[in-house]
C-alpha cells in the first residue's frame, strides 16, 4: 500500500493529482467519479460578468494546442449558489480560482467566495492589471505580493498563487508570492503564443494570441517549477503538459508536491484517474511508501565529477 496523500500547507489531499483551472467542468463527472481526484480546481471566475473572447478560440498545434478563451464568468454569486454546491457532491476538496482587475478586487472577491465547501483559493495573476497599463499582475513581483496580501487580509482560506510563465525571473515572482503570504504556488499558467494559417493569412485564434498548452511545453514549465521550488519553502504544484504518470513524477522529482492536469483531459478525459494509478504503480516499483517522499528527490550530477569531466 502506497500512501498517496500529500500536504499543501494545512490542506491534506488524498493524492497529488488535481485539475488545472479552466479544464474541468461538470461534464467530466459524466465520465468518471470526480471524488477520485486530489482536488477539484474550478475555472477562474471574476466578479464582473464576462462573455470571453470571440471564436475561434482553439487551434491544434503539434502535440499542443493554442487556446484563447478569456475568462467568461457569471460572477461570485453564481459561483457560490451553483458551482460550489455542484462539486460538494464529490469528496475532493474544492479550490476556487479567481481573477480580478485590481489588487483590491482580488481581496474583495476572495472574501465573497470564502464559503463552506471551498477549501482554498487559487489566484490567477496572469490577467491584466487595469491600474498598471494592463500589464499582468504575475509579471511584476510587487503586484503579485500585493495581490496575495490583499487576499490573505480578506479571508482565512489558504491562498495559492498560480504564476505566469511569461516572465524572465520566475524565482523572484515566486518569492514575492511567498512573502505576500501564499500557502502554495502553482507553476505555471499557459505560455503566451500565436499561430497563423498561411492559406487564409488569418491568426488561428480570433484573439490573435493565446496560451500554448499540452505536452510540447512540458520541458519549459518543468524548468520553471524547478526554479520556483528552489526559491521558496512553500509547496509548489506543478502544471504544464502533464499527460502521464511519468510526467507527474518528473514534476515531483523536480520539487513539486502535487500536480495539475489540463489539456490532457481534453484528449483523454479518463487521464487523471489513470495518472493516479500509474503514480501508485511507480511507487510500488521503486519501493516508495509515501508519495510525498518523492518531492525534490531528483539526483543531480555530482558537481565535482562534472567539473573534472569538463576539463578533460
Amino acid at each position: 500500500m502506497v500512501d498517496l496523500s500529500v500536504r499543501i500547507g494545512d490542506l491534506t489531499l488524498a493524492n497529488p493529482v488535481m485539475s488545472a483551472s479552466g479544464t474541468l467542468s461538470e461534464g467530466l463527472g459524466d465520465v468518471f467519479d470526480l471524488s477520485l481526484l486530489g482536488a477539484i480546481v474550478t475555472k477562474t471566475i471574476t466578479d464582473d460578468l464576462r462573455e470571453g473572447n470571440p471564436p475561434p478560440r482553439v487551434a491544434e498545434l503539434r502535440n499542443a494546442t493554442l487556446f484563447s478563451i478569456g475568462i467568461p464568468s457569471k460572477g461570485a454569486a453564481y459561483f457560490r449558489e451553483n458551482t460550489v454546491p455542484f462539486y460538494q457532491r464529490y469528496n475532493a476538496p474544492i479550490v476556487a480560482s479567481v481573477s480580478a482587475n485590481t489588487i483590491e478586487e482580488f481581496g474583495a472577491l476572495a472574501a465573497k467566495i470564502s464559503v463552506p465547501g471551498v477549501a482554498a483559493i487559487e489566484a490567477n495573476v496572469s490577467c491584466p492589471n487595469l491600474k498598471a497599463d494592463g500589464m499582468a499582475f504575475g509579471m511584476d513581483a510587487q503586484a503579485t505580493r500585493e495581490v496575495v496580501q490583499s487576499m490573505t487580509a480578506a479571508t482565512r482560506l489558504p491562498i495559492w498563487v498560480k504564476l505566469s510563465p511569461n516572465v524572465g525571473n520566475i524565482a523572484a515572482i515566486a518569492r514575492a508570492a511567498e512573502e505576500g503570504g501564499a500557502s502554495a504556488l502553482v507553476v505555471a499558467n499557459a505560455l503566451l503564443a500565436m499561430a497563423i494559417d498561411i492559406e487564409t493569412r488569418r491568426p488561428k485564434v480570433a484573439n490573435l494570441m493565446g496560451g500554448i498548452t499540452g505536452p510540447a511545453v512540458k520541458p519549459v514549465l518543468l524548468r520553471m517549477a524547478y526554479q520556483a521550488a528552489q526559491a521558496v519553502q512553500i509547496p509548489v504544484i506543478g502544471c504544464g503538459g502533464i499527460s502521464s504518470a511519468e510526467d507527474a513524477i518528473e514534476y515531483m522529482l523536480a520539487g513539486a508536491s502535487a500536480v495539475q492536469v489540463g489539456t490532457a483531459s481534453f484528449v483523454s478525459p479518463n487521464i487523471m484517474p489513470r495518472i493516479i494509478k500509474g503514480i501508485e504503480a511507480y511507487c510500488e516499483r521503486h519501493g516508495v511508501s509515501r508519495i510525498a517522499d518523492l518531492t525534490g528527490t531528483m539526483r543531480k550530477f555530482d558537481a565535482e565529477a562534472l567539473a573534472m569531466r569538463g576539463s578533460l
Partner: protein
Amino acid sequence: MQMMKDRMEGVPACTFPVVEAPYPVISNDWVNGEYKLLVVEAEAAGLAARAGQFFHLACPPEGENDNFLRRPMSIHRIDRERGQLHFLYKVQGNGTRALATLQPGDTLDALGPVGQGFSLPAATQHVLMVGRGVGLATLAPLAQMAIAQGAKVTAVLSARSQALVMGRQVLEEAGASVHVVTDDNSDSDVVSLEGFIRRLHAASPVDFMATCGSNRLLMLLQKLSEEFGAAGQVALEQRMGCALGMCIACVRAFRKEPGAEALTYRRVCWEGPVFDMRETVAW
C-alpha cells in the same frame, strides 16, 4: 424488490453516460468521391446515443501530423439491432484523412455520446428536415426517432450534384419521403426550396423543422417555421477542444431568449449541438 433496493444502496445513482472506448471497425468505405461511411461495433453505452448527439473521435497520427485533438462527428445511424454506429464524414483535412485510413479490424478511439440531441414534442405530426451536404449526417437519426414516435417525415436533401447526394437509402429505409434538390438541377436555390416547402405545408402541415449544414437553409427555415407556427431546431458546428463543456472553446453567439436582441455565447458541445432555431443567429 426490497433486496434489490438494499443492494443499490451506496451505489451511485447514475453510472457514467459518456464513455471513452475503443470501437472495433467493421467497415470504412467511400460512398462517393468525398465522403466515407465508418461503421463500428458498439456496446450499450454507445448505442444509448440519441438523435443529434455526437462522438469525439481520436484520429490516428499520420507522419508529421499527430492529430492531437479529437474531431467531433455526428452519429449518422444508430443500429441497435446489429449493435453498430455509423459515421458519415467528409475527408478534408489531416484528421479526417487519418480517419479514412482505418481498416476493418482496427479500432476507433471514440468518446461519447455527448451533446444535447433533438427533442421532438410528443404530439409532432409532420417533420420537415432539410440538409445540405454533410448536414444530412446529423439529420438521419432524427428521421428514425420521429417515425418511431409516430410522426411523418419529409427529408429534403440538397447537394451540388446527384453524385454527392447521400443518405437517401438510410432515410427511405427509416420510412421518410425523400426529395432531392441539386445545384446542377437548379432547384436547390432558396426560392425554389421555399416554393416546395410552401406546397408541402399546404398539403400536409409541417409542425417541426430541422436543419444542419447551411446558413441560407437556416434562414429560410427560421422564416417559415415562424410563419407556420412550427417548432424548429438546428444542429451547429464549432471548433472544439474537449466536447464535454470544459474548455469553453466551442462557443457561438445566441439570442439570450427566443427573439431577444441581446446575445450571449453558448457552448456548441454542451448546450448543443442542437439548438432552438429562434435562439440561433445566422452567421
